[in-house]
């Protein structure tokens, strides 16, 4: 297990390094000048030049890359061009929204999607299964921003149960903060739950055909016992991979949903930074998002290994 983990960590480190290089260099050719944007349409050329020097933009690309990279190792990502504040602090502030949002959506989609998938698989072909799968089919097909908007119309504008958006920092009022995230989390989670339910059902239906389920039943277990004791855990393996990938979708989803609910998340930081050509913030934020996805995939790999002794000992997962 430790060997497995160390191999993976090495892989994660290499991936992150490559990602950092690609993100930095790609964005360096981005058209537009942060200094010019900050000073606006009537700015004089010498003011722009002064600001460029001030921001360190006149240094060569590679030099700036290595400054940034070494900063990364020390947790110091530099100072935002437009906001004149440490990037690390800016991002930590935004992660307070994005991370709980993505994680609670992941949690919600899991506790909604998996049981529905399991129950549907157990009642395959019956009314419950059919109606659950029709709902899931629709859930998969609804664009999440559209769904988010419907939620706002119902729960915020019409019934006023939850706020239509906005966010109060956790430190100020944790209950209010959590309340602000309820609708966004649901908007993100339900489509994903529909996907999970479908996959869980397919996977469990497959597993229920497996020989070891028959062995378990021959042993004397009832069908339900066999499904819960042997089937679900095995059926979860492919679902786990999907959940890892789903996190990538959730990250994408948070960026979209943040706009609907005007949440101060990482996605909006990226957009506002792009529109100010605050490249240092854009790079670091994108890298953090990518790192989050990689981290979750790493956790999924570890969980996979923890659940499945074949991988734990084999060291390699095929496929």
């Amino acid at each position: 297990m430790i060997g497995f983990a160390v191999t993976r960590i090495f892989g994660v480190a290499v991936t992150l390094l490559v990602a950092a290089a690609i993100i930095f260099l790609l964005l360096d050719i981005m058209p537009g000048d942060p200094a010019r944007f900050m000073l606006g349409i009537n700015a004089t050329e010498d003011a722009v030049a002064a600001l460029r020097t001030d921001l360190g933009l006149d240094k060569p690309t590679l030099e700036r890359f290595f400054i940034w990279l070494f900063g990364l190792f020390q947790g110091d990502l530099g100072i935002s061009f437009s906001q004149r504040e440490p990037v690390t602090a800016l991002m930590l502030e935004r992660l307070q929204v994005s991370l709980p949002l993505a994680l609670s959506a992941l949690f919600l989609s899991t506790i909604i999607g998996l049981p529905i998938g399991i129950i549907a698989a157990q009642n395959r072909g019956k009314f419950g299964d059919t109606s659950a799968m029709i709902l899931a089919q629709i859930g998969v097909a609804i664009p999440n921003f559209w769904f988010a908007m419907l939620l706002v119309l119902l729960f915020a504008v019409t019934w006023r149960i939850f706020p239509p958006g906005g966010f109060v920092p956790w430190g100020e009022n944790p209950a209010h903060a959590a309340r602000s995230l309820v609708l966004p989390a649901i908007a993100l989670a339900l489509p994903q739950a529909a996907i999970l339910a479908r996959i869980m059902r397919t996977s469990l239906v497959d597993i229920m055909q497996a020989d070891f389920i028959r062995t378990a039943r021959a042993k004397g277990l009832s069908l339900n016992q066999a499904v819960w004791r042997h089937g679900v855990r095995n059926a979860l393996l492919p679902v786990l991979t999907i959940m890892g990938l789903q996190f990538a979708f959730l990250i994408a989803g948070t960026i979209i949903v943040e706009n609907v609910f005007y949440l101060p998340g990482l996605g909006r930081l990226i957009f506002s930074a792009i529109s100010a050509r605050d490249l240092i913030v854009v790079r670091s934020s994108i890298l953090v998002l990518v790192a989050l996805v990689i981290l979750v995939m790493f956790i999924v790999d570890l969980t996979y290994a923890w659940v499945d002794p074949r991988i734990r000992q084999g060291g390699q997962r095929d496929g």
Partner: protein
Amino acid sequence: MSQIIEKTVKKSLATAAILSFTAFGALASELTVGQVLEPPHLDPTAGAAAAIDEIVYANIFEGLTRIDQNGAVQPSLATSWTISDDGLTYTFNLKKDVIFHDGTTFDADDVLFTFERARAEDSTNAQKGIFAPITAVEAVDTHTVNITIAQPQGDFLFNIGRGDAVVVAPESAETNVSTPVGTGPFKFVKWDKGSRVVIEKNAAYTGEAASIDKATIVFISDPNAAQNALLAGEVDGFANFPAPESLSIFEADPRFNVLRGSTEGETILSINNAKAPFNDVRVRQAVAHALHRQAIIDGAMFGNGTPIGTHFAPHHPFYEDLIGTYPRDIEKAKALLADAGYPEGFKATFKLPPPTYSRRGGQIIAAQLREIGIELELINVDWPQWLADGVKAKDYDFSIVSHVEPFDIGIYANPDYYFQYDNVVLQAIIEKLNVTADEAKREELARAAQKIITEDAVNGYLFQLAKTGVWKAELEGMWPNSPVEGNDLTAVRWK
């Protein structure tokens, strides 16, 4: 159409009746204001973003003068001033017993610091032009300051009343980006990045005190989210509501009050005058004849906006009504194009920055110009891209921009400006205008300038951008117009 609105309104009314006690009442001295764009930072002397001024101008920071609702210059930190006979030296008498929010006292040294900082070689002030004519700033005593300018200037007092010239203290100037410290009626409390800025009443303020205790400025960029936030009672108003299409809904809803005013934003179809075929005045005139202003105002802004025929604010006393110069006339436009050698029309690029007026207006204008054979390729760009393409590289054919600087006809005298309009006659007029202090003379010059640029059809003049505020009906004291970038909350109060 109206039926649907009615239904929606009735439904919302019912809910409002049930829930009104939670929405307001208990916290009557607090105010939550929606704002579309979040500022990059909060130092108005170090950035062009209007979003900075919308929060801090007149609320947190004050200048020597201030601009009132009608665009007139009023005393602020300078209680009075005198101008020398040659028009070159301004003597300001400063307000006494003023302290900055951090407790430091305000005196002539702060004014000196402010102006020296803005004028300095390495200054990053976005409007360095305001300070360029200044040759000297001296403190006569602790509460008297002399400012000398190189040539007489008509709008100097107005200019130093703008957000870029607010007075900052040397102790706090560097940290104003995150914790602005000024002398205004509101104190900065905190800024939750990405979300909101909170300001509260400055108890030590010596002028006319603010009537609300605390104001929260919430950043909502999505027009639909803005609408939801208002309807859900989450914000009390928007000084600039981002969705003109929804105004009719709020107008029909008695819970809300829609304030329609004007901004200093002349919205124009800008044309690259140095580039063929636009260097031919006939082509530009053809374009002007093809434009149908009201359709653009209706289509893009849902009727909000005043048509203009030149680059000047219609509410300004110097405004010259030139709307009739180029009536919509497709045949004439085609004839002009044929004269210029383009009987079949031509293709051109149309770079559209993000605001609604531009993106929507662009589609409508493209349809209108297609009628005279000009095929436009619409290219959506964001502001940095637009600045790089337009201002720096002059790589565009058409664009739509709202020029929000007050009294900015002077840009036509700069051949390097992105229109690349180069007319020595106009340049002479503007030069003269800049050094003329006499109002009647100034008016004459300004009107002449307007006529010239309209005759030359430098740009397509579309409409004056409206300021459309949506507020809870119980609020009063909001500014209907935006004579300068800013959003003065001092007079806002619950009825």
